[in-house]
C-alpha cells in the first residue's frame, strides 16, 4: 500500500518536473525576472530595506535548509537554529582568535556546523519523529547554556565580528549579495538533492524507514548527511547576516520591547534603542540569546514553504 503510494508520488513528481521544463515557461520567466530585480535592487534601495531583504534571504536559506531534514527526510528539526548560532560563533571566534577574514570564516562556520551535526546526529537521529523534535529543541537550549558558561564564547556578552569595511554602503551591499548568493546556493543544492538518488533515498526514509533499510539504503548515513547539509547552510547563514543581534543584556535594557530582533516593524519603531537593522553592518555581534528570534522566523517560513 505504502509502496504504491510512494510510486504514485514519484510518478507525480516526475510529471511535475516534466511540466516544469516544458509548459511552465511563464513561471520560469517570472523567476528570472525576480532574480534580476533582486540583483539590481541594491542600486535603488536605501540601507534599511537592503538590510531587511538581507535578513529575508538568510531566513529563507534557513527555511530551505530545514526543509532538507524536516521536509524530505521527515525528521522535524525544530531546533535547527542552533546551527545558525553555532555558525555565527565559529566565524566570530575564528576571526577574533585566528585572524581569519570573512569569506573563509563563513566556510569554517559551515564546516563547524557539519561537524556538530554529525556528532549530534549519530545518537539523536536514532530517535523517532516526535522525540527527535523535542531532542532538537533541547539541544538548542543546552547549546545556549553551554555557550553562556564558556569563556571562549564571551558568555552573555557574545562575540563581535571585526569590521569588514569602514564604508557602510559597501558593507550593506556586501552582506546583501552574500545573503542572496547563499540563498541561491541553498536553493540550487536543494534542487540537486531533490532530483538525484539522495533525494529519493531521503523520501523513502520519510515514508517508511524500515522499508528503506530493507531496500539496502543505509538510513543512518543518509539521515546524518541530510542533517549535515541542513546544518552547513544554516551555519553559513549565521555569519552572513551582517547584523548585530541583541545581546541578552541589551534585551533586558529595552524595557517595553525586548525582542527587537524578531520583526522589522518593531525595529523601525525602536530604531534609536535597538541596534538590529539600524547600525551599519560593517561589524556584527552575536550572543547566546540571539537564536530565539532566528529560530522562530525560520520555522514560520518553513511552515509557509511546507504548506505550499
Amino acid at each position: 500500500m505504502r509502496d504504491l503510494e510512494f510510486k504514485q508520488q514519484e510518478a507525480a513528481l516526475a510529471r511535475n518536473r516534466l511540466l516544469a521544463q516544458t509548459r511552465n515557461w511563464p513561471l520560469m520567466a517570472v523567476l528570472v525576472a525576480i532574480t534580476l530585480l533582486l540583483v539590481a535592487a541594491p542600486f535603488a534601495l536605501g540601507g534599511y530595506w537592503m538590510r531587511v531583504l538581507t535578513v529575508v534571504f538568510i531566513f529563507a536559506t534557513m527555511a530551505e535548509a530545514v526543509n532538507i531534514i524536516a521536509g524530505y527526510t521527515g525528521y522535524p528539526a525544530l531546533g535547527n537554529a542552533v546551527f545558525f548560532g553555532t555558525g555565527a560563533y565559529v566565524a566570530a571566534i575564528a576571526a577574533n582568535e585566528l585572524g581569519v577574514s570573512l569569506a573563509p570564516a563563513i566556510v569554517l562556520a559551515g564546516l563547524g556546523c557539519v561537524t556538530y551535526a554529525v556528532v549530534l546526529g549519530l545518537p539523536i537521529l536514532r530517535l523517532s519523529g516526535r522525540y527527535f523534535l523535542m531532542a532538537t529543541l533541547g539541544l538548542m537550549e543546552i547549546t545556549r547554556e553551554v555557550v553562556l558558561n564558556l569563556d571562549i564564547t564571551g558568555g552573555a556578552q557574545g562575540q563581535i565580528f571585526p569590521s569588514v569595511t569602514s564604508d557602510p554602503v559597501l558593507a550593506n551591499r556586501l552582506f546583501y549579495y552574500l545573503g542572496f548568493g547563499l540563498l541561491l546556493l541553498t536553493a540550487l543544492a536543494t534542487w540537486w538533492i531533490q532530483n538525484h538518488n539522495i533525494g529519493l533515498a531521503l523520501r523513502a526514509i520519510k515514508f517508511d524507514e524500515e522499508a528503506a533499510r530493507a531496500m539496502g539504503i543505509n538510513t543512518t548515513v543518509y539521515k546524518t548527511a541530510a542533517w549535515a547539509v541542513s546544518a552547513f547552510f544554516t551555519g553559513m547563514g549565521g555569519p552572513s547576516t551582517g547584523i548585530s543581534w541583541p545581546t541578552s543584556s541589551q534585551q533586558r535594557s529595552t524595557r517595553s520591547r525586548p525582542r527587537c530582533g524578531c520583526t522589522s516593524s518593531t525595529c523601525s519603531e525602536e530604531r534609536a534603542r535597538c541596534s538590529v537593522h539600524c547600525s551599519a553592518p560593517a561589524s556584527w555581534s552575536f550572543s547566546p540569546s540571539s537564536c530565539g528570534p532566528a529560530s522562530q522566523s525560520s520555522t514560520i517560513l518553513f511552515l509557509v514553504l511546507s504548506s505550499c
Partner: protein
Amino acid sequence: MNEGLVQALVNGILLGGFYAILGVGFSLVYGVMGIINLAHASMVMIGSYLTFSLFSGIGLDPFLSIPLVAAALFVISWLVQKYLLNSLIRRGFMGMTVVSTFGLNLFLINVALLIWSADYRGVVSSYSGVAFELFGIRFPLVRIIILALSLLLTYVLWLFLIRTKTGKAIRAVSLNREAAVLMGIDVYSIYNITFGIGGALAGMAGALLSPISSITPFMGGPLLGIVFSVAVLGGLGNVSGAVIAGIVLGVAQVVGVHFIGTSWQLAISYGIFILVLLVRPQGLRGVKFVK
C-alpha cells in the same frame, strides 16, 4: 554526608513535587492526542501573570488564586483545542498541530508583553520569608506548601482519571480512539476537555511557581526543558510516572547544581532529558495512566 548535600537533597525533593505538576499536563495532552504542546510552558507563564495580577490587584493570596487561574486557563485551552487544533486533526494535519502550538507559544509571549510588559514581576506574600529549621536543614514554608499542593492536585487528577466517567472516557480515547467512537464517546469533545485540563494544570503550576520565581514573558523557555524531561522520563501520558520523574529530576538538578554550579542548572535539566531519550531511543512508552 555533609550538610550542604542534605540541604540540596531536601531542596530537590521540594522542587521535584512541583516539577510533577509542571510536566503532567503536557504528558496528559500528549498521551491522549499525540499533540506536543510547545505552548505548555507559556501557559504556565500566563498562569503566573494572572496570579500576579490577582495578587497586586485585589490582594488575593497566590495559593488561593489557583482555582480561578485554573478555570481561566481551562477555558482558554478548551477554545484553542476546539477552534484551532481540532480542525487540524479532523483534516488529518496531525503534524501541523505542533507548529500551531509553536505559534501559540509566540502569541502568548507577545500577549504577555503587551499586557504586563517585559519587567520582572514577583509575588511576595507576608509569609514568604518564613522557614522551619530541623537538624540544621532549612524548610521554607512556601516551598513546603508548593510541594503539598502539587502532590495533592496531581492526586486529584489521578482520581479524576480513574474514577469519573469523563476521566475514564479520556483514558479510553487515549487507549483506542476508534473503539471509543464505537462506545458513543464524542472524541473531539474529549479532546477539548483534555486540552483544557492540560491548560488548567499549566495554570496551577504557574500559580504555584509565582511566589518563588520572578515572572517574565520569557520564563517559559527554560521551563519547557523541565516539562519535556518530566514527560519523557515518566513516560508520556503517565500520571504517577510524572510524579516520580519530577522528584528524580528535581533532586538530580539540585544535586548537580551543588557540585557543578548554579549557572549550569538549565543545561543539567536538558542534559538529563537528552540522556533519557538516548538510553531509550524509541522513547519511553510507559503504561498509559498507570492502571
